[in-house]
């Protein structure tokens, strides 16, 4: 009885690690391709459709380019704060299950992708640029997609719980 529980728990943890790693890998591969293409000039601009462009940009801050500090002290402080938040989410995700857990894992995978950039490149690589006529949405990356999706699902679940 205890052995089967232990085995199931082990399988569960392995699946969670694999899921997080998969998101992290997708993000890293996409960023590596963009970096490889921008190797010659250091810049990269490509129009895929009239709505979607690829444009390499380095972000030293957080969402919407906030807290984009040039001084290393503040930059490292923000990076460690992000690391602490990721740890907190990992602890919270341990108690969750089902769709909620998947959402947390998506957030963790994406957040680790961005955190890796922050420590390795000293800024995060953004390259997906959506535009409609002259209006441009904020340039983001694959990690941001997973983080946003995870957060949206969690908010929807929260509203659903309230209604019930």
């Amino acid at each position: 009885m205890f052995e089967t529980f232990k085995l199931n728990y082990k399988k569960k943890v392995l699946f969670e690690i694999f899921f997080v790693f998969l998101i992290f890998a997708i993000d890293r591969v996409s960023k590596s391709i963009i970096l490889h293409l921008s190797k010659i000039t250091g810049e990269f601009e490509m129009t895929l459709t009239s709505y979607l462009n690829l444009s390499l940009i380095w972000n030293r801050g957080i969402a919407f380019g906030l807290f984009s500090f040039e001084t290393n002290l503040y930059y490292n402080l923000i990076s460690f704060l992000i690391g602490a938040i990721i740890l907190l989410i990992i602890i919270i995700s341990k108690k969750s299950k089902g769709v909620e857990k998947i959402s947390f894992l998506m957030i963790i995978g994406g957040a680790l992708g961005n955190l890796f950039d922050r420590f390795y490149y000293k800024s995060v690589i953004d390259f997906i640029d959506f535009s409609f006529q002259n209006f441009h949405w904020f340039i983001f990356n694959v990690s941001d997609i997973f983080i946003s999706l995870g957060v949206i699902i969690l908010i929807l679940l929260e509203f659903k719980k309230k209604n019930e």
Partner: protein
Amino acid sequence: MNKIYFLFFIALMLSSCQSAKDALTLKKKPSGDEFLVEKKNPLVMPPNYGKLPMPEEKKDDENFIDENEIQVIITNDSNVSSKIKKSTEPTSLEKSILEKIQ
């Protein structure tokens, strides 16, 4: 409600999108000083370029094989090879020069 605020905070802190304005205004590009760029003179033909002597055809040493060697290979004639050896021996004039040098 507090949880929703917390989730918004997570989204804000962990995601990393950047204003498209920075990309469009080419903020990331280092600006070069155009006044530091040195102008080069246009390429011109040297004077009397047409009068220069034509370069002689050089023999390719690696591919060059003596006719006698080919003959030896084909016919396997020992006489020919002895002739070659003889031709490589120094003549009397060469011998006297060599003696003087030594």
